[in-house]
Structures are given as structure tokens and as C-alpha cells.
């Protein structure tokens, strides 16, 4: 077996190698090969992790002194998702990013971001989590500010201030936890906190939730998201919306649900999640800027996943993870297509896309499919995942669960209306005769098509997925 440490080592060394050679071809090749290789690595580990989590020994130093890492089904699953998404986004970037525009640095930062993303899913040490969290944040800041125009700089700065407050809170939480536990391993933390004063644990838990939550874009610390996701290059928007916030969400929820299990934070999380759904959809409803609309939609979709997790049931966790998979595919596709809409028209405003569907028929059609899946139209994947979230909520019962169902259903109506408003504009009659076809360039088109294929034909994967989703969902409630 190849060591899962490669998840961290490979992208990190790739980053250094490409900056060393400073050649576009090498950078592109490496950043394509590394995620593909890691996806394969994740797939090769998946069968083993389905039975039991596999601890990883780092530098032959066992747990209390060394840093505990472990790969479980959830970790393997998330790693595969991250690696595949990253590979596709890099493929897209190869034609989307302007040539000679510091491309090597761009791929370097993407690789560093990947390092931290993999690190976050593998680590079982709360301070190590902080470090990876910071790397993730910093690489995101840099990527958001990539365009170096007014909006990007502003968005990046806001993101950075909120991220720094988040890391302040996270560190407070870590300090408090370390004071009672005397250890940074999550397993030790869980045991120690079980006997600690509950007010103390509650404080630590809340600061942790909102500390990591800033990256996971949970309400109300997600105010940076619409700015950052809409101002970043579209490939980066796809990465950020496609797996970064989801990953942070899974990690935040897992630690909260296990290490801080001494206090029941689920009701709090559920309220936050429901608020996120409604605020996101309502704010997206009136947007005129396509990427900003998609970013607000991400806020509400994150809310749906968090809501599913917060039900605290196995069914809820499974549903949330499946919805996460769907959202990763659909939202990445939407952002990537939006990127080319902007390239082709030079505008971010939906109103300027009138008749674009005739110029870019394939792109617009893929946009339609991804949107349909996002709003949950059967028989696309989105329907099944949303349905599972709803039925898990129904099975869990209780006022807030049914409230969540109602809010999600209402949100879906809003989401349908605003996404189809976009489609209506896209397919508006062309102003002048039949315009020249100008679909996306083929690498970008291939990447988007694969993302879209996931959400369109994803329902066919469900039987296979359902055999693996159980252990993965267990991962949300276990630290092994």
C-alpha cells in the first residue's frame, strides 16, 4: 500500500518543484498528475477504510508525542472528491487562465491549498487542524485576490479579516481545550472534556464552531463568501464553492460532534443551518450578478448540508454527505460555466447574457442541467439527495426539523425562480441573426461536462454509493 502521507507530501512537493522550474508545462502537468494520482490513491485506500479507519504513523512517533493522523472512509471519500474536483478544475484552468499571467504561481498556490485540504481530512490533532486551517485560509486569500483588481482586493481583505478573527477564536478554543486535556489529540480531548465543567466546554465548543465555521461559511460568519466567491477567478470560485467550504464544514462538524460531544451543540447548529438556508436563498433572489447569485446559493446549500448533519442521525449524516457530493458537482459546473460567460461577454451581469445560449449552446445546456440538479429536479442526482435530507429530517422529527423541511422547500422554490431567470435570459432570442458559435474551449468543456455528468447521471451511482455511505457517515461521529 502506498502511504496516505502522500496526500500531504505530494502536492506540497509538487508546489515546490513547480516554483523551482518556473515552467508552465511542468506546473500544469504536475498539478494535473498529482490530483489524479491522489484520486487513485484515495480509491485504493477506500476499500480498506470501509471496514475500519486506518491510523497513519508519522515519522514512527506514536500518538501522544507524534501527530495522530488517520484515514477513514469519510476521509478517503472526501480526499477522492477533492482530488477529482481539483484535477478537473486544473484542466479547466489550463484554458481559462490567461497565459503568462503568473500561471506557475497560480498552480503552486492551488497545490498548497490541496495540501491543506487533504491535511484537514487526515489530521486527528486539534492544533494540526489549526495549522492546516491557516494554510487553507491563506492560500484561499491569495487565490481570491488573484485578479488584483479592486473587487478582488476588497473581497480578499474582508475574507482575511474574518478569517483572522476565526483563527483567533479557534486558538482560544484550542487553548481552553489544552488546559483541561493536556493533549492536542482529538481522542484525548473528547475524554477530557466529558468530565470538564459544561459551561467551559460550551464556550470552547462555540468558539471552535465559529472559528472553523468561518471557512465553512456557516451563518452568520459567512459574510465574506459572496464577495470572495464572486470576485475570485471562476476556477477558484469552483474550488472554493465546490469543495473547500464543504470540507471545512465536514471537519468542523466532525470535531464538534466528537471532541466536543460533552455538550449538545446540535440544536444550535440546526438553528444556524436553517437561518443560512433562508438568508442565502433570499439574498440570491434579487442578485443581478451571476457569480454573486451562485455564491449566495452556496450559502444556502451549505445550510442544507449542515441541517442534515445537525439532525444527529445516521440517515441525516448520509443524506448530508450525498448532498455534499451533488453540490460539489453542480456548483463547480455552474461556476466554471459562469467563468466562460464572463470571458465571452466581458460582463458579470445576467442581463448582459441575453441570447448567449445561441452562441454557447453546449455550455448553456450544461448550465441548465447543473441548475436543474441543484434545485432537485428528478431524476437528476439533486432530487435524490434533497429528498434524503428531507426524509431524514422527517424521521428525526421535532419542531426544528420540520421547520427546516419547510424552509428548504421554500428555498427550493426561490432557487428555481432565480436560476431559471438566468436560463430564460440565456436562451432569449438572439438579437442579430445567428451569431457565431463560441462555446468553451475543449479542456474547459471536458471538465464541466464531467462535473455535469456526475449530477445528471449520479443517480445511477447511488446503489454503489449507498454501500459506502454508511461507514462514511459514521466518520462524522467518530475520531478513529
Amino acid at each position, binding site marked *: 500500500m502506498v502511504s496516505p502521507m502522500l496526500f500531504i507530501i505530494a502536492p506540497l512537493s509538487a508546489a515546490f518543484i513547480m516554483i523551482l522550474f518556473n515552467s508552465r508545462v511542468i506546473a500544469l502537468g504536475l498539478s494535473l498528475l498529482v490530483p489524479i494520482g491522489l484520486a487513485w490513491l484515495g480509491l485504493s485506500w477506500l476499500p480498506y477504510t470501509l471496514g475500519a479507519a486506518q491510523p497513519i504513523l508519522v515519522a514512527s512517533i506514536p500518538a501522544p508525542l507524534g501527530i495522530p493522523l488517520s484515514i477513514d472512509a469519510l476521509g478517503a471519500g472526501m480526499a477522492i472528491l477533492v482530488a477529482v474536483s481539483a484535477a478537473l478544475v486544473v484542466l479547466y484552468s489550463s484554458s481559462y487562465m490567461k497565459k503568462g499571467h503568473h500561471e506557475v504561481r497560480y498552480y503552486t498556490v492551488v497545490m498548497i491549498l490541496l495540501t491543506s485540504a487533504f491535511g484537514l481530512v487526515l489530521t486527528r490533532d486539534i492544533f494540526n487542524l489549526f495549522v492546516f486551517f491557516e494554510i487553507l485560509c491563506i492560500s484561499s486569500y491569495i487565490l481570491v485576490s488573484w485578479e488584483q483588481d479592486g473587487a478582488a482586493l476588497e473581497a480578499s481583505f474582508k475574507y482575511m479579516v474574518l478569517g483572522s478573527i476565526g483563527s483567533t477564536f479557534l486558538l482560544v478554543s484550542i487553548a481552553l481545550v489544552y488546559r483541561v486535556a493536556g493533549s492536542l489529540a482529538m481522542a484525548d480531548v473528547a475524554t477530557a472534556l466529558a468530565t470538564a465543567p459544561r459551561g467551559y466546554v460550551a464556550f470552547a465548543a462555540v468558539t471552535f464552531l465559529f472559528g472553523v465555521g468561518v471557512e465553512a461559511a456557516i451563518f452568520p460568519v459567512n459574510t465574506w463568501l459572496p464577495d470572495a466567491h464572486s470576485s475570485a477567478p471562476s476556477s477558484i470560485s469552483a474550488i472554493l464553492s465546490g469543495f473547500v467550504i464543504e470540507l471545512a464544514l465536514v471537519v468542523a462538524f466532525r470535531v464538534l460532534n466528537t471532541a466536543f460531544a460533552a455538550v449538545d451543540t446540535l440544536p444550535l447548529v440546526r438553528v444556524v443551518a436553517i437561518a443560512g438556508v433562508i438568508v442565502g436563498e433570499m439574498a440570491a433572489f434579487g442578485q443581478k450578478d451571476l457569480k454573486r447569485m451562485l455564491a449566495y446559493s452556496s450559502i444556502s446549500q451549505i445550510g442544507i448540508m449542515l441541517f442534515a448533519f445537525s439532525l444527529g442521525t445516521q440517515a441525516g449524516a448520509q443524506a448530508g454527505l450525498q448532498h455534499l457530493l451533488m453540490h460539489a458537482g453542480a456548483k463547480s459546473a455552474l461556476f466554471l460555466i459562469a467563468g466562460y460567460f464572463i470571458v465571452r461577454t466581458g460582463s458579470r451581469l445576467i442581463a448582459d447574457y441575453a441570447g448567449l445560449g445561441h452562441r454557447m449552446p453546449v455550455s448553456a445546456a450544461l448550465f441548465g442541467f447543473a441548475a436543474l440538479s441543484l434545485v432537485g429536479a428528478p431524476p437528476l442526482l439533486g432530487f435524490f439527495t434533497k429528498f434524503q435530507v428531507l426524509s431524514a429530517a422527517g424521521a428525526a422529527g421535532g419542531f426544528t426539523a420540520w421547520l427546516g423541511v419547510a424552509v428548504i422547500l421554500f428555498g427550493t422554490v426561490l432557487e428555481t425562480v432565480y436560476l431559471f431567470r438566468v436560463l*430564460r435570459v440565456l436562451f432569449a432570442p438572439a438579437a442579430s441573426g445567428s451569431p457565431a458559435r463560441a462555446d468553451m474551449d475543449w479542456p474547459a468543456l471536458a471538465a464541466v461536462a464531467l462535473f455535469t455528468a456526475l449530477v445528471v447521471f449520479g443517480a445511477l451511482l447511488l446503489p454503489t454509493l449507498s454501500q459506502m455511505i454508511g461507514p462514511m457517515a459514521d466518520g462524522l461521529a467518530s475520531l478513529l
Partner: protein
Amino acid sequence: MYTQALLLLPLVGFGVAFLLQGTVKRSPAIVKTWAMLGFAAIAAVAALAGAEIGTLYEGPTVFGSVLTYGLTDLSWWFVLLIAGITALTTVFTLGSLRYADDYPMYYAWLFAKVFGMIGLVMSRDLLSFFIMWEIMSWATYLVMQQGRDESRKAAQGYLVYAISAGMILLGGVVFLRTASGSFEFAVITKFVAGADLGVIITAIVLVLVPFLIEAAVYPTHGWLPSAYASSETTMTAYLSSISTRMGLFGLILFVFNVFGLDVIDRIGISAHLNLRTLLLVLAALTAVLPTYTALFQHDAKRLLTWHSIGQGGYMLLGLATASTLGTAGGLMHIFNYMTYVALIIFSIAAVEYRTGTTNLNKLGGLITRQPVAFLGMLFGIIGLAGIPPMNGFVSKWFIYRSLILGGYPFVALAAFIATVGTIMSVYKLIHNTFLGQLPERYNEVREVGWVMQLPIWVLMAVVFATGVFPGTILQWIARIQVELGIAPIAYTLGGVAQEAGDLNMMVITLVFTLTFIVGAVIFFMGGKRRIVSQYDNYAAGHFLNKDVPYNFNYNFYSAFDHIFEKLYHAAPVQSTERNLGRLVATVGEYIRRFFTGQINTYAAYYVAAVIIALAFLKEVL
């Protein structure tokens, strides 16, 4: 085998038609031929599928339960209606759809819609029902939004309603699944029979409201007129004739079969003030108000779309009585309305094909130019107005009868009032299109070709034949009634034999024909008629010539318009709909203000969130 084919054929048809869209501009004949073959095959299979009634088939497993589908008497009846009208529509479009480049996906979406509808009526469990419901809604949206910008705007209106209905239904599905533990209709029936009143009411509201929306029952009908009227005209015919009735199908299925009448009737204050009374009142409002709105329409398509709503009210009236006669009337009216509204709109489409307009203020006098279309519309409006010997009379007679016998005199009165409005508005329709003075510019108008005439002739025959021999239809209705747990109607070939008064259409038709012949004899024997040029004429003291045209066409019911103008423009539904939309937008606008753009505020949210969360947890701890 036929049952599977019924699902498979539209899917294959969709796939091929989708791939053929590139050929539409160059050679529309390819996709038209494909559509014709496909829908003919579906119709043939639908006719054969009756042998498989009662057999359940298993589809894929989803969420641990198997999707099941199969035919019942009720669903076979609907499958036949769908397949029949689709085939007729397709024949008509072979001739009429010449602007194929505006509608490159016409047939593809039509196949998708047929798949959704056939799937819906054949679903034998809640989950497949919902999936098919959604597919049908999306396909309907896609079908509507083709063509001009106006169609897309109207389709967006439909989408809001449809997706709202879908989400309410989804809530209902989740609720029923959670409460009963199963998607199977049989389990749900058993569960509902023993459930609390609160649970039943929640389930019924969540499940039935979407059907009322789809059936465009007052006050949820706001989407229908624009959405249907802005579609391509043949699509207007198709949507008006069958699409709206899917809501009624859901209603029938759930009220009579899944929930059961006993459960439905448990909801209410007394035996006379219950859910069914509410449905009757809604149905009466649906029958009356839209019918009178139709009077003031100046577009032939739009006028008829209001009748699609109004006639749906009649169907619901009959069904809500839950009596033998009433349900027979309601079920039969679904068929009758489908036939004559398709007939009328095909005639309109024939006129539009030649004149390029459906504006009632601009047409007129086309009877000499397009006699077949005129005959088609004449047969159709006689049916729509509920006058013998066409089939509309029979079902309306059943509905009136059942209302009077069931002890709902006021509702019956409402139904009569609605009929007056219907007659007035269809008179406007035929007068402004075919009668009166022929405008100069339409002198060269000719009858449409035989391909487009064919469906008109077929439907004329059906409307007349099922009017004279309603027994041919009633035999199906009786079978459905048995399945729904209602005493079957005692039908004869000419109508119905019962203690409370027989109906024999054959006799009535005979009397009508004789009267007609007598009138004709007097007319022709009298020798009083003189054929003159349309300009050798006068009206209201004015001579009519080329420069002074016959002007009744313009604003036909302007006197009524004057009287009802205020009422009509104050229509609460439209403004409620608009206000709701505005409310959501405004609230959204305020919620968006949460994202102020200023970093200090964001930091404040952060700190506030932590503090509030701590307070919240204190509460929980």
C-alpha cells in the same frame, strides 16, 4: 410488456427527437415523421395495454423501496386520452408547424411531457408518483417556454406555481412517508384510516393543494391563461385539453383511492359543512369567475384558456359530489372537454395558419373562406356551451342533475350562471372569427390542407358521436367508478336509465334534427333570402362599405365590459399573486442588506454570533 413500452417509447422518442434538433431547420420533415411514428406507436400500445390492467410492474429500487407502476381502469382511461390527443395534435402539427426553427425542441419536449404524464397516471406508489409529477411539471415548463420571449415570460409564471406545487407535494410525500413508514399506496391507505385528525388534515392539505394548483382551481389559477395562451397554438390546444387535468387525476386518485372518501369526509364541522363542501364552493367559483373573465378577452386563445379553468370547475363540481351521477359527469367532462377544446383550438390554429393572427378584433367573416374550420368551431362551441346534441351537454346534464339531487341548489345555480357566460363568450368567439364582414386583407384566405383538416374532422365526429351515443364513453366510466368504490352508473347506449329521470341522447338528437330540418325547410321554401355583397348592407343606420366596416367585432362585449370593468380589474387573485411576488422580493432585498459590505459590521456579526450562541447553549444546557 405494453405497460413498459408505454414508458419506454416516449423516452426513446425524446432521445431521438433531442438528437434530431439540428436537422429541424434544414429538413423539418425528418423530425415530424419521427414524432408521428412515435406518437402513433404510443397510441397503438396504449390501446393494446388494456389487457394488462391490474398487473404491477417493478422499476428500480430507490431509497430501499421499489418503484412500482401498472395500469388500473382509471389510469388506462387517462393513458388513452393522453395518447389519443397527442397523436391528433401531432397530425395537426405536421401541417401547421412551419416555423420549426422557432420550436426546434417542440417534439422532444412533447415526448418528455407524454412520458411524465403517462408515468404519472401509471405510478402505483407515492415516490414514483412524485418523481413523475416533477418530470411532468418540468416538461410542461419546457414545452411552454419555446418560441417567443412572451412565451418564456409566461412559462416562468407557470414555473413558479408548478414548483411551489411540487414542493408542497414533496412536503406531503415526506410527511406521509415519515408517518406511515412506506411509499406504498396500500400502506398509506391503511395508515390514514387509523390516523389522528391532525395528521389527516396535514396530509390532505399537503397532498391535495398541489393538485388544485395544477388543476388551476380558483384561486390558484393565475398562471394558466398567460402560460397557455402564449404557447404555440397547437400547444395551447394540447395543454388546455389534457395537461391541466393531471391535477384532477391526482385529486381523483388520492381522494377516492389512496385516502378514501370516508377519511376525507371525516374532516368538517358537520355532514354538510366539510372538505367536500369547500371543494364544491371552490369549484363553483372556478366555474363562474373565469368564465365571465373570458367574455372580455380579445384573443381567441386567451379566451379559451379562461374556459380551460372554468370547465375544470365543472369537472370538480361533479367529482366533489362523490355521487354516481356526479362522478360520471366529472369523469366524462374530462373527456368531452378534451375533445371539443382541441377541436376549437385546432380551428383557431387553422385560421391563424392562414391569417397569422388570433386577435378577435381583427378577424371576421371567414366562414366562406374556411368552412371546415368554421364547422369545427361550431361543433366545438356547441359542445362547450353544453347544448345538445354534442357531448358537452351530456356531462353537464349529469353534473347539474347530481348537484340538484345531492342537495346543493346554490352550487347548481352557480353552474347555470356559468353556462350563460360560456354561451355568451363562445358566441363572441365564433362571431368575431367567422361571421360578420370579411376584412379586405383576408380575401385570398383559403382552407387549410387535408392534413390539418383531418384532426378537425375526426374530433367533430367524436364530439358528435359521443354526444349522441354517450353510452360508448359511459361504459369506461362505469368501470372506473367500480374501481373508485362508487356505485357504477346505469348507462344505456343513448345515456342513462335511472329513477330520477332518464336521459336518451338518441331521442334528443332525433328531435333536434327534425326541428332543424323543419326550420331549414321553412327557410329554403320561404324564398325570402337574397344573397348580396357584404358591402351592400347596413347596420345601426349606417351603410357598410369598404371604408365603413362592420364594427361589432371590435370590443364585442363592450357594454358588459363597462359594467364589470371595475370588478374585473380588481380581480383579487392577480393582485395577490403580484403582491406575494413583490413581498418575497422586498423581504429578500432587506435580508440582502445584512451583507453590508463593511468589514466592521461583519466583525460585529462574528462577535454577536458567538455571544448569542453561548446564550442559546446556556438555555439548552
